[in-house]
């Protein structure tokens, strides 16, 4: 699975894309968030962290499928 990183999350992780081996331990958005928090504790300090799957905000229960475009969405600040 490839994860796109933006804004402060790109800085925290240190790159703009993260490749994660598809794994039974990360079946859905909620478990991805848990995995990220363990790997990159600085992500937990953010005001919020959303996940987008195929360009849509995704709830914790959404299943992750190989080939989906997954992105980390830290608090937005456009406008």
């Amino acid at each position: 699975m490839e994860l796109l990183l933006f804004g402060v999350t790109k800085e925290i992780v240190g790159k703009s894309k993260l490749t994660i081996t598809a794994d039974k331990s990360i079946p859905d958005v909620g478990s991805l968030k848990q995995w990220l928090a363990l790997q990159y504790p600085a992500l937990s300090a953010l005001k919020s962290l959303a996940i987008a799957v195929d360009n849509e905000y995704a709830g914790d229960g959404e299943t992750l499928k190989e080939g989906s475009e997954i992105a980390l969405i830290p608090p937005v600040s456009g406008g």
Partner: protein
Amino acid sequence: MLLKIVEHIDIAEAYNYLQHPSCGAVNLFIGTVRDRSRGKEVTKLVFEAYETMALKEFEKIALLAKQQWPLERITVIHATGEKLPGDAVVAVGVASPHRQAVFEATAFIMQELKTTVPIWKHEYYGDESVWINAHP
């Protein structure tokens, strides 16, 4: 609908797009870079967008606005990259037969844009910089 992520916002293009023969009311909001923020002098902003998703969100917001007000034209344009004080970073415009509708719709679109669209502002003051809104 004219929905774009661009390097440089062309106000004339936005205004020209908003012309519609049955609409007597056109309203255009432009957000620009301020010279000061958080009590410090701003040297520049850098905007980053998740473009494909941002454009989808623009479209959702525009459709929500259309459901609430009689709008014949909607434009939402956001800039990315390095912006200096005075530069336009966002332009939101609508055209309607009804005057009050254009004020309400523009305010609504800006509010939604700031809430849901995946665009990030990195503010620079001299040596320091901060991702706006990132931390509590």
